[in-house]
Structure formats: structure tokens, C-alpha cells
């Protein structure tokens, strides 16, 4: 049974249809990436999946008692709110110090526990958000452009971490990204969205699809090769060095 399933949903923002006729599902252990141009409804779809925006049509079913770990696109912390990283992890449920520390360590930011949230860099902040999201042992991780503002190596490292977390937790992951070439490597299934679903499938299928090329052009081919996994070999036990396999496409 799917963890989250959307059937033929419509979401309106005023008079415009942000998302229409979208059906998708997420199973345990798979990583689904939603790509699409700006304003294509990616974030709206994601927020509809977690129940933060009402849908006008269709229906969304979530597995009963589904635990969702959500990493928002950005989190504006008002400077008037004094909040340390540690206290932030206690929201909305209080957790033990050991558990919080373990989550922070898992995302590589355990040294920041006592720092105020407001003083973190973009990359540190994203890892803190991710640590908070994995605290409740989520069945689904939902990430909205989690690497916004990070440079490409940092993004690639972040997506690798997500992949590793998926393997450890066995959770489903659904995320939005527009860094196609970086995110493709860590994805099982891609949904190409432009209000409706233009095409979907494995990264190979989608990047070859005419609808995808129409939206994004073909210029990302070289970079895609650079970051793509070799899916035939094991994900564990050895260090990936993707640049070995890089052969300029042009």
C-alpha cells in the first residue's frame, strides 16, 4: 500500500490552477523527485501532499498515522524569537537530549546544538532542518528545494545524505528540486510537473522524454553524466567518485 496517494487532484490559487489533474503515489523506500520550471506548482503539490493546502478536486490518502518529516523550502525565523538549535528540535514534540544529539550527528551538525538558529549559514540550517525531520523516525521525508542556496558540491553531498537516510530509515522520500542534474543521481522516479504531470518515470526515461526536453532543453546532458550513479553496482562498501565516469557530452 502506498504511503501517500494523490488521485486527480486540483489546487487553485485564486482564479489560477496551480496544480491540476495530478495523480501520484509514494511507496516506502523510494525517492521521488518533482522537477519543473518556476511556478509549475511543485511546492504547491508538495504542500497539498502534507495537507498544508486544501485541494479543490480529487483526493489524497495518507496511510493511517503516517509520520511525516518535513523540510520546508525556507524557514524564516523572526529575529524577535530567541531559539537555539536544540530548542528548535523540541518543536512541536519534546525529545530527549540524546535523541536530538544523535539526529544532529547523523546530519553532521551536532557541534551546533547550542547555537541560536538565526546565526546559522544556509547549509548548516538545511542540515538542522533535516535533523529535525528525522527525529520522529518518519515514514515519509518531504523536502521542498532542500539545497536552495547551496553550491553544487554541497548539494550533491546533501542528496547523498538523503539517499543514505532513505536506506537507513526505509522511508519514502518525495522532494522538489530544480537542480536537475544534481538530483537525478539520487532519484528512483522523477515527476516532471508543469501544472499537470508532463512526464514521469526513471531519470533515464524522463530525461529522454520529449516533454522534458521541451521544458528544460537538452543542455544538461554533460552535467547529468557527471553526477549520475552507476545503478548497476552496489551503493555500499566503496566510495563513489563520479568524476571518473565523466565524459563530456559535447
Amino acid at each position, binding site marked *: 500500500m502506498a504511503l501517500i496517494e494523490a488521485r486527480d487532484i486540483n489546487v487553485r490559487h485564486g482564479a489560477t490552477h496551480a496544480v491540476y489533474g495530478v495523480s501520484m503515489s509514494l511507496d516506502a523506500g523510494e525517492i521521488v523527485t518533482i522537477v519543473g520550471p518556476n511556478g509549475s506548482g511543485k511546492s504547491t503539490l508538495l504542500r497539498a501532499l502534507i495537507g498544508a493546502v486544501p485541494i479543490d478536486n480529487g483526493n489524497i490518502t495518507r496511510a493511517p498515522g503516517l509520520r511525516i518529516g518535513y523540510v520546508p523550502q525556507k524557514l524564516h525565523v523572526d529575529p524577535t524569537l530567541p531559539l537555539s538549535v536544540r530548542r528548535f528540535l523540541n518543536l*512541536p514534540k519534546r525529545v530527549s537530549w540524546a535523541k536530538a544529539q544523535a539526529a544532529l550527528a547523523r546530519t553532521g551538525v551536532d557541534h551546533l546544538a547550542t547555537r541560536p538558529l538565526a546565526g546559522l549559514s544556509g547549509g548548516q540550517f538545511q542540515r538542522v532542518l533535516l535533523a529535525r525531520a528525522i527525529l520522529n523516525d518518519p515514514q515519509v521525508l518531504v523536502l521542498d528545494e532542500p539545497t536552495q542556496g547551496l553550491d553544487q558540491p554541497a548539494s550533491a553531498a546533501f542528496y547523498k545524505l538523503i539517499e543514505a537516510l532513505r536506506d537507513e530509515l526505509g522511508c519514502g522520500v518525495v522532494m522538489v528540486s530544480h537542480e536537475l542534474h544534481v538530483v537525478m543521481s539520487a532519484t528512483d522516479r522523477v515527476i516532471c510537473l508543469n501544472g499537470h504531470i508532463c512526464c514521469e518515470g526513471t531519470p533515464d526515461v524522463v530525461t529522454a522524454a520529449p516533454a522534458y526536453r521541451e521544458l528544460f532543453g537538452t543542455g544538461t546532458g554533460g552535467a547529468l553524466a557527471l553526477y549520475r550513479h552507476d545503478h548497476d553496482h552496489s551503493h555500499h562498501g566503496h566510495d563513489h567518485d563520479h568524476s571518473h565516469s565523466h565524459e563530456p557530452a559535447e
Partner: protein
Amino acid sequence: MTFLDDFMIRALLAAVGTALACGALGCFVVWRRMAYFGDATAHAAILGVALALAFSISVPLGVLVVALAMGVLIGTLSGEVISPDSLLGVLSHSALAMGLVAVSLMPEARIDLDAYLFGDILVVSKTDLAVIWGGAVVVLGLLVWRWQALLAEVLSNDLAHAAGLNPARDRLMLTLLVATVVAVSIKVVGALLITAMLIIPAAAARLVARGPEGMAVWATAIGVVAAIGGLYAARGFGTPAGPSIICAAAALFCVTFLAGRLRG
């Protein structure tokens, strides 16, 4: 004869009760940038006073109902074509003007207007005290009960949704609490200065607090000190009590501001 027969004791209890109701809630007003929202709700209180007098119901009840209606109205209308601050400006000043007009239509009520605009703490009755302390208990109780959820909602609506909370309901509760505070503090500081009682202690607390709970405790303490200090200053200098309390709070804000600067 009880100690409550001393008007100064009653005034002190009223001021301290108001400060208790305002402290922690004021932090949310500051965090969520609801200052103008608080103003609009407080201004609507004058209309509530007029309606209460017209229909011969209790004034705090009339104020509570109208302030709450105003809060809900703002919540419903915001996000439409008009920007939130313009909307608040329209509603806030319209409510105040309508309230003043409505009061003027009732000749027997006109003499009371100053008391409701600026507070008249020296005439609080035992019933007023019961309303103030009852309101403070309700406000503090609900804040403690929903504290974690409210904090999560301050950070992010989506984050709260993802955690299975109902942020819209929590926002409505904050609206209700602000209306309650308006209803209980109108007698103490008056409709025009209620927002100050919410914001100044919380803003002062921000400069010395390191966590949200600490900030709420500091804000409450600062509010209580300002209430007591302001009231004694008012008696000593023969100044109006409500504005004197706000002046004391402003002085404390200056102190924590300087302390915060010195500490770095």
C-alpha cells in the same frame, strides 16, 4: 471589611493581573508581528463598550465579543486583494471612529469615555478584579496548554501541518486570547494603550532572553514590575495610572536595551 476595600490594593491587583495576562501573550504578538492586529482589536473595544451600554450587558462581555469579532474579521479578510497592513488600518481606525460616534449617541455614557480610552484603574471594583484575574488564568492556561503547537506555528505553518497540528485553530485561539486581554485590560490601561502592555514588556524581554520560555517569563516579570512601579509613580506624581504604567514599561525597555548592548 477586607483588604480589598482599599482602592490602592485593588488597583495593584488589577495592574498585576493585567501584566500576567499580557506577558506571555505579548511574546506571540511580537513574534508573529501582530502589533497592528492588537491595535485594531483594542480599538474595536470602544465599539464594544458602546454596544454593551446600549444593550445593558456587562462591559467586559461586550468588549470581548466585539474584539473577537474584529479579530476573526481580520483573519478572514486578510490575504484578499488589499494588503494586510492597509486592511488593519482600515478596520482599526474605522472601529475606533465608530465606537466614538456610537458612544456620543448615548449622552449618559459620554462621561465614561476617557476611562475606556485611557483606563481608570483607581475605580476598579471587586467584580472587575474577578474579570481581570479570571481572564489572566484563562489566557495563561491556554498558552501553557498549547505552547509547543503555538511555537511551531510561529515558525512555519507547513511545519505545523506536517506534524499533524491544526495551525488555523491555534491562530484562532491567539485571536481569542488577544480579545480576552483587551477585554480584561481596558479598565487598567485603556483601549489606546493595551497593545503597549502586550508589546513593550515582550520587546524588553527579547533583549535579555535566550529562549522562548525565558522570554515569556522575562516579559511577565517586566510587565509586573512596570505595573507596580507605574501605579506608585502615578500616585506619587498625580499622573494617570494607565499611561504611567506604560511609561514605566518603556523605562524598563530602555534598561534592558542598554543591558543587552553592554553584554553584546
